[in-house]
């Protein structure tokens, strides 16, 4: 991996996420029978936010500022651990899957802390929910990664993605399928998508991620939204690279296939969001535990 | 030997029952005194001829157990006032029955112990154990402090009966020391009872339960 490649990778990780959001929104609009906003609408939104000024709450401290900053930084770094179109990620070492998971933990820590920093009851509530559900999502994430660790005998994300997906599906199809399903659930939960959270709702009482951002404005809000979108992209990329065999061709072909797969996943998320209702908050833990059990079952199939 | 001893021991046993059956404190004291005197007599009968020391000891025994100690006890009885009943926790009939059982057990237990040739036919061991047990019965079933001293005295008497077998083994000084200790012990007890009767309204051991858990 050349430094240039790494920079390109990083650039993609910063630039691509709004597009993924656009795809999801467009899919949802189409499913609802609307034309929907342009695909690039999220870029316009971000640009607008970055050019605005901000108003801060008198209650807040530096922690409030740290929330969005850390979210973007951690998601960017996490992206370096996941191979996009390339064979191996720019940064890869034994155990980087732990770093991957814990980076998002760091981001979440500061996002939630920033929410609590405002002293608003709504934002605090959102923070509590975020902390609760992600704590439950963590075992599910690790369980699904464990399935792959056992199959691939490797401790890095690049190793888990590996060279040869078709062999992966052939040798351990059922466990890997279960793990992918579980990963998908985790992805929806971690990124506050339906059925866990509705990013477009307007009732503060029921929200998770958006309610934490009530007091953010201008560039800070932009950073926070960008960070969230990056997280979605990075986690989608991981799922895509595990689930979808990329063609064994030249580099540009692989990148193109990767992009197509990512956008296809965006469509799938949009479809899910259009066809499902948001769960009651009390039922959210059940779904996460179910996801853990899926992976656990996959693991039992492997090690029995 | 046993032709002299056995009748004496039977008498000792009779006094045991008397002690258990009587309701007057004075009578109980008298029974213990008579028992002590009998012991001295028995001692003299067994060993009186063997020398001046034995003679002196036998006489001292009669003097202490038959005269001195009962005097102390009677003095204490007099100082305590009007109540001269024994006031046992169990009825006199039960006491007597207990005494009978104790005597029977003593005979049984004594049988399991091998005896030296000379003592084989004597009632010595059963009588001794029965008297010890009688002492225990008095100690555990009689309410008054004074009667408990008598119980202790009876216990000692029982032990002295056994001691009769061992005159040669016990040096004179030790035997005298034992006797003296008993005397002093009862004397101290008498003093304590005196103080108790001054501190407390009556000599009921029942009242002496302030120190408890």
């Amino acid at each position, binding site marked *: 991996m050349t430094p240039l490649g790494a920079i390109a990778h990083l650039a993609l990780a910063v630039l691509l996420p709004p597009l993924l959001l656009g795809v999801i929104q467009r899919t949802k609009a189409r499913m609802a029978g609307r034309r929907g906003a342009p695909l690039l609408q999220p870029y316009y939104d971000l640009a607008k936010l970055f050019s605005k000024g901000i108003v801060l709450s008198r209650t807040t401290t530096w922690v409030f500022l740290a929330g969005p900053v850390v979210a973007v930084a951690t998601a960017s770094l996490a992206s370096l651990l996941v191979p996009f179109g390339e064979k191996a990620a720019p940064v890869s070492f034994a155990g980087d899957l732990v770093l991957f998971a814990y980076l998002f933990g760091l981001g979440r820590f500061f996002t939630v802390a920033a929410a609590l920093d405002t002293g608003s009851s709504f934002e605090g509530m959102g923070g509590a929910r975020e902390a609760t559900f992600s704590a439950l999502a963590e075992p599910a994430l690790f369980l699904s990664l*464990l399935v792959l660790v056992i199959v691939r005998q490797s401790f890095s994300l690049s190793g888990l993605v590996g060279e040869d997906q078709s062999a992966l599906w052939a040798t351990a199809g059922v466990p890997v399928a279960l793990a992918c399903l579980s990963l998908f659930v985790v992805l929806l939960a971690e990124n506050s998508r339906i059925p866990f959270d509705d990013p477009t709702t307007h009732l503060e009482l029921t929200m998770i991620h958006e309610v934490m951002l009530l007091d953010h404005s201008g560039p800070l809000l932009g950073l926070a939204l960008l960070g969230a979108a990056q997280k979605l992209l990075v986690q989608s990329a991981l799922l895509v690279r595990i689930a979808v065999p990329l063609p064994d061709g030249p580099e540009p072909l692989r990148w193109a296939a990767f992009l197509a797969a990512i956008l296809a996943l965006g469509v799938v998320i949009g479809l899910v969001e259009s066809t499902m209702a948001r769960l009651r908050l009390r039922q959210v833990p059940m779904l996460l535990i179910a996801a853990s059990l899926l992976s656990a079952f996959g693991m039992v199939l492997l090690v029995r | 030997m046993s032709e002299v001893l056995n009748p004496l021991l039977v008498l000792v046993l009779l006094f045991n029952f008397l002690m258990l059956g009587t309701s007057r404190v004075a009578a109980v004291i008298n029974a213990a005194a008579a028992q002590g005197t009998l012991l001295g007599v028995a001692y003299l009968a067994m060993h009186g001829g063997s020398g001046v020391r034995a003679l002196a000891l036998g006489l001292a025994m009669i003097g202490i157990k038959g005269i001195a100690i009962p005097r102390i006890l009677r003095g204490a009885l007099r100082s305590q006032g009007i109540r001269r009943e024994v006031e046992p926790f169990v009825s006199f009939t039960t006491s007597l029955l207990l005494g009978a059982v104790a005597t029977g057990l003593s005979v049984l237990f004594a049988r399991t112990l091998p005896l030296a040739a000379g003592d084989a036919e004597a009632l010595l061991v059963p009588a001794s154990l029965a008297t010890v047990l009688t002492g225990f019965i008095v100690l555990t079933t009689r309410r008054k402090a004074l009667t408990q001293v008598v119980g202790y005295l009876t216990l000692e008497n029982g032990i002295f009966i056994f001691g009769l077998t061992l005159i040669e083994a016990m040096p004179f000084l030790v035997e005298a020391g034992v006797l003296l200790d008993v005397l002093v012990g009862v004397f101290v007890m008498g003093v304590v009872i005196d103080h108790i009767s001054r501190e407390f309204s009556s000599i009921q051991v029942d009242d002496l339960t302030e120190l408890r858990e």
Partner: protein
Amino acid sequence: MAIVSAALAVAAIALAAVSGLPGLWLARERPAPDRLAASLLGLGAICAASAALLVAAGAPDATLALPWRVLGERVTVGLDGLSAFFLLPIFGIASLGSLYAVGDFPAAAHPRNARRLRVAFGLLASGVGLVVIARHAFAFLAGWELMALACFFSITAEDEREEVRRAGFVYLACTRASTLALTGAFVLLHSASHSFALDGLAQIDPATGRAVFGLALVGFALKAGAMPLHLWLPGAHAMAPSHVSALLSGVMIKVGIYGILRMASLLPPLAAGDGAGILALGAVSAVAGVAFALGQHPLKRLLAYHSIENIGIILMGVGLALLGRSLGNREVELLGIASALLHVWNHALFKALLFFGAGSVIHATGEGELDRLGGLAHRMPATALLFGVGAVAICGLPPLNGFVSELLLYLGLLHTLVEQGGAPRMLAGAAVVALALVGGLAAACFVKAFGVVFLGEPRSAAAARAHESPRSMLAPMAVLALLCVAIGVAPQIAAPSLEAAVRSFDPGLAAAGPGLREVAPFDSISLGAALLLGALAAAAAVAARRVRWPAPRDATWSCGYAEPSPRMQVTASSFADTLVGILRWLLWPEVDAARVAGPFPEPARLDTRLPDPVLDRVALPVARRLAEASTRLRWVQQGHLHAYVLYILIAVVVALLTTRGDLG
């Protein structure tokens, strides 16, 4: 060279032991005795650090025979890698703690308690030190008890408070139980080896070895506070003065870990099941510890349950190392022991930091209940920043030190999962999941604690009047925070000490097989940490460029509500409510909630408590029952002389009957 290092260690212990004594003769009101104690302990720390550095630099193991014989056998102390590894945090935290006490617990403010505490604190440090360098059963137990008693007096420094006394007594009972278990273990050891010396034990027969290890494990786990033997820990940590809590949690409970490691390295190899058992014990302790921490409202009590969690994580490493050793998997053993050891250091650093932070908050507000704090970051910015560093570190998040040791543990578990079969494999898988869950829950818990204490609006007048703590309290915290960052960014600095400790834990492991630096991805961690710091700087730069300073300030947007009050903020209880509800089956929370009914309900309040599962639900009720049963036995001693004589008669009769039984 070797003798120098051992002598330095002894000097450190002696300095610590006398550190509080001069204060007994100096005026109470002056700060001089506090400063003197801190200086003596600081000097001790320098000695200990030099000794540890010498060992890390390769000084050979040293043994020092003291001019002291117990029952004909020379008492020896010694310094090897393992001892040195523990010695460093012991004296480091102790000296920082005594410095902290200059500000937090000055004699002038606590005229009745400070002198006693100063003496006990120094003795506590010296006792812990003696334990880790003892090479003789008797010296070990003497150090152990010195530590236990000094610790008792440190915990009960403020004995005018009823709850302090109660916590102290629970501690005292537990520590005696642990001493007795250890006594049993050493007795067994002596009967097998016919010596008090703690070496050359590898030849004793394995069955005895296991029995010794079992007994010792009970004693050490009691001291370490592993669930379910943790019953003394939350109360003691919560009630002790803060610098004592820091020393307890940071150092003293680690002696239990030291003991387990020392025993395991001395005794003949254990069965795989033993390592697996400790691994499972650690996992249980970690999950249950963090789960119970979630529902705690007093800040120090919350931190105490996190000590149980972290001891669990350390024990997982220990168990993994033993498992690896008995399975012959060198990589697993190395990763297990390295993670356990490194976490010992890490936990000492960040937990001491957190307890200092909690103490600083209590010092400033007089309030330790989470739900009466809030908004302190405005008035105590330095404390907030340093506490925040500790909070991130304890959650095991990069780029701080907690991440490094947890990563090593994950790697060890993953190796087991991939390379072993059967039960160890399943166990490793379960342990990974448990560790992940622990990470998630710990993050939830600490974001709650940090947020509720330092962010938002003050929830009480006391919190609103808070002031920043003096520099003598902040400086120790700053040192600890810097070390947390240093180990997180450059874990290589710990490597020499770690390697020396691993050498004395299992010389065979160090001699053959892969080296620590080959197995542990220290360089990659450094790279990751550097990248993360870079990314943070970049993102911060972007934000700084985009935001126009000073930004206008206004009230928090509260969704249109006109009169928000600080009491409407999320509290610690409400933050954790959902998680506590999900874990209800494990935690059994006690909830007092009034029913709210009708259109105009009465004022109502909600109280939630989380009684300790072992102490409050088992140990205390059982103890109370036993005490009642024994008071019921009092009827045998009611003052009736007749009965007393009867007892004698019964004793005679029964004993005589047994002799008859003998003869048939």
